């Protein structure tokens, strides 16, 4: 088990390094002048001397390979560099933005899991075939609806129509509800879609017939037997969905004017704040890697066939027939 976690952590470091390398190549090494980017699009009258000064300030005058390792060493020390427009450390900016984002992301994930699972179960459980089909038509719709439009509808209905939740800001729990719903829609729809397919397939498995043949009722068949088996593929996707959730915060925080990681990202890109963009990319990669590690650790709890730490042992032929 420990060995497995060490191996997985080593893999995680590999992924982060790859994320660093790719973002470095895109932001610094590709044709184009980072110094000019730093100076901004409006700096048309900038002199070559000023550009050189900028390059020296941000270490851009050094050979690329040196820059690559300089930044890598800094990264290992936990230093993501400084934001260009503000001059503040990138880690500090991310740290400030994080709590408000975690608030809506966690609530969003919770809503997505609860409503996604609920919808899937309701759709397969319902004896009414037409109702089941109607419910199953909802998830594709949820994935297809553009996030910003849905967010505006929510504001229209629940802030202006029935004033339940505030339309903007990040004060208190109420302010987190609408952004969280915006985040939960595509995520929950994906979970619902996957789980309902998986449930339908599981209910066709021969071992479910065995349970019916025992005289079990539909509730026992669905909840005690089918759900746990059907949840396995959905769990894998939940790991991937966290990435979707992070990118969703960009839209949600912008529409609801909440400070947070999404807003910071949007601003950093707009201002061409290269160190901040790279810092956010690395942070997102770290979150992603950790969530998936967590999912892999939960797996063996749900499925006894999966054994962590050693390879699955092929059933050894004992020579004793049953």
């Amino acid at each position, binding site marked *: 088990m420990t060995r497995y976690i060490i191996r997985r952590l080593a893999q995680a470091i590999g992924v982060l390094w790859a994320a660093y390398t790719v973002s470095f190549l895109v932001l610094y090494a590709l044709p184009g002048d980072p110094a000019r980017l730093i100076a901004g699009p409006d700096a048309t009258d900038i002199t070559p001397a000023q550009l050189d000064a900028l390059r020296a300030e941000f270490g851009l005058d050094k050979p690329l390979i040196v820059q690559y390792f300089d930044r890598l060493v800094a990264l290992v020390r936990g230093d993501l560099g400084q934001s260009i427009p503000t001059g503040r450390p990138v880690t500090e900016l991310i740290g400030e933005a994080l709590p408000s984002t975690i608030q809506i992301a966690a609530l969003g994930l919770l809503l997505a899991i609860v409503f996604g699972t609920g919808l899937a179960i309701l759709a397969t459980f319902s004896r009414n075939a037409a109702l089941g089909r109607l419910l199953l038509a909802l998830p594709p719709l949820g994935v297809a609806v553009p996030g910003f439009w849905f967010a505006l509808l929510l504001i229209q209905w629940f802030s202006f129509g029935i004033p339940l939740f505030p339309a903007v800001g990040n004060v208190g729990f109420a302010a987190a509800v609408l952004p969280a719903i915006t985040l939960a829609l595509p995520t929950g729809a994906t979970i619902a879609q996957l789980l309902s397919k998986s449930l339908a397939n599981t209910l066709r498995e*021969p*071992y479910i017939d065995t349970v*019916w043949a025992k*005289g*079990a009722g539909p509730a026992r068949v669905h909840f005690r037997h089918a759900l746990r088996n059907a949840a396995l593929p959905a769990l894998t996707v939940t790991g991937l969905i966290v990435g979707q959730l992070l990118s969703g915060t960009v839209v949600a925080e912008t529409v609801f004017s909440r400070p947070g990681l999404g807003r910071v990202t949007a601003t950093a890109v707009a201002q061409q704040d290269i160190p901040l963009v790279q810092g956010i990319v690395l942070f997102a990669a770290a979150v992603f890697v950790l969530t998936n590690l967590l999912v892999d650790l939960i797996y063996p709890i749900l499925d006894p066939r999966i054994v962590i730490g050693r*390879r699955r042992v092929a059933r050894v032929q004992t020579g004793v*027939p049953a």
Partner: protein
Amino acid sequence: MSDVTAPAPGTPVLDIDGLAVQYRTAAGTIDAVRDVSLTIGRGERVAIVGESGSGKSTTAHAIVQLLAKQAGIVRGSIRFNGTDLVGAGRKDLRAVRGRRIGLVPQDPTVSLNPVKRIGTQVAEVLVIHGLADRKNAEIAAIEALRRAGLPEPELRAAQYPHELSGGMRQRVLIAIAIIGGPDLIIADEPTSALDVTVQRQILDHIDELAAETGMSVLLITHDLGIAADRADRIVVMSEGTVVEQGTPAEVLGAPTHPYTRALIAAAPSLNAAGDVDRALEPLADEIRARVFGGAPGDPFSVLDRPVAATGFDKHAADVLVLRNLVKDFPGPRGAGTGVNRAVADVSFSVPRGQTFALVGESGSGKTTTARLALRLDDTTSGQVLFDGRDITAARGRELRELRRRIQLVHQNPYASLNPRLTIAQIITDPLTAHGLGSGADRKGRAAELVDVVALPATVLGRRPAELSGGQRQRVAIARALAVNPELLVLDEPVSALDVSIQAQILGLLASLQRSLGLSYLFISHDLAVVRQIAHRVGVMRLGELVEVGAVTDVFRSPRHVYTRALLDAIPGRGSRVSPSVSHSHHTRSGVQP
């Protein structure tokens, strides 16, 4: 439904009258069961025999009303202990299922919930019916597992299904079926997914339990041999109707319906050697020259086959020789240097133009041996010689050349054909892969090959889903023949097919061998089939070849205990069939799929 528990004395346990079951599909309705009437007395064992599509399984599932969603009972009654189950309420049905009627399903490997412990799954029956609380149910479950003949029931109860062998899992399912103390057990092909020796133990055990508790048994099987051994009465079904019923002696001794006669003729377990459909004409010389005139592995070359490679030369060297073959798989990590020896020092040779059969139960290493011979896996040690050449370490181009001379036919024709390709594309695939011939050449060859395996030319444009199992296996054979191979490795080529189809495919293989001088390495767990097709046989057990010899010798006087055990386990050996019936080949044409 409370009266179910106290039936009037003399009432049969089950009385089915005029049952009809329909499936609704997009294309219309299909009558799976048209008219079935049968009764099962108290303590009686009744077997329903029929091929796939005969409606036997649908009948079994209709009794407990566990039919597919699109199926429904349209007519008839199913009286269980005097009460009609057709039209009974959901609650009443649930009270009968598991408690009064136990069901033993077909494939134990997929019939247990993989994420729940064995003990819990057995105990669940008692919990559902309120017969015991959870704790007492778990204790009762261990007792039920013991009664089902599972060794170390306390240990097994704490394990998960994947930790048990197929035979053990079937015993768990038997425990689930009997724990409620049912009046009737329905066993739906309970052993068709198991090895013969295990099959026999399981069926023996069901018999013992039935005798002990006085419960009735309804056995569903495609194997007339098993039915003859196990049942007090046999019900033969075909196309949804009962065509014949009676005691085994009546049904086997004096079958009145042509379908029964055909079924008897086709059942390999009931027949002596030589019952393969040998009536098939060998290929005409003209076809042989045109379709298989090219060089081995290169069908479009105009060269005649060298005499040595035809398989008709009595003095030709053996086509495949395996010497002291060993294959180790790495053992579980943490088990030190331990390895899992799948094949241990196996030596045999496949004579040209003949069939060598490799027999063994699952896990015996027969398929691994075949994979080594095909060079799909690397050997740990030992030698593989093909046509006198050492190919143990062949790779790259040499291996590709080799692949044109050895071809493989898989066990399951439902899985081995790409569902998205047309039959013509499937058959020409090996030619395309090796870059042989032009597109038109390949197309022409596909048409010729389809004709050789006796399929209509119209299948060429169809896809596998539109074909029956037997037709698909013919396609797989045509594909294997496309490159003019010298050796075919046939991995259980008929075990997924109905008996009458089995006889047809075996007949085709025998005819092709006689016409083309092909050599076969035939992998099978079914000794009855081997007896019909093979010239030589090797028996494998736990990776070792325990006995090799001519088929007649091995079957007449087996030297190894294990071979004897295998031979004894063949069902239907106790039932003598009059020779006139078993040799009536002309009737077989009446049971086309």
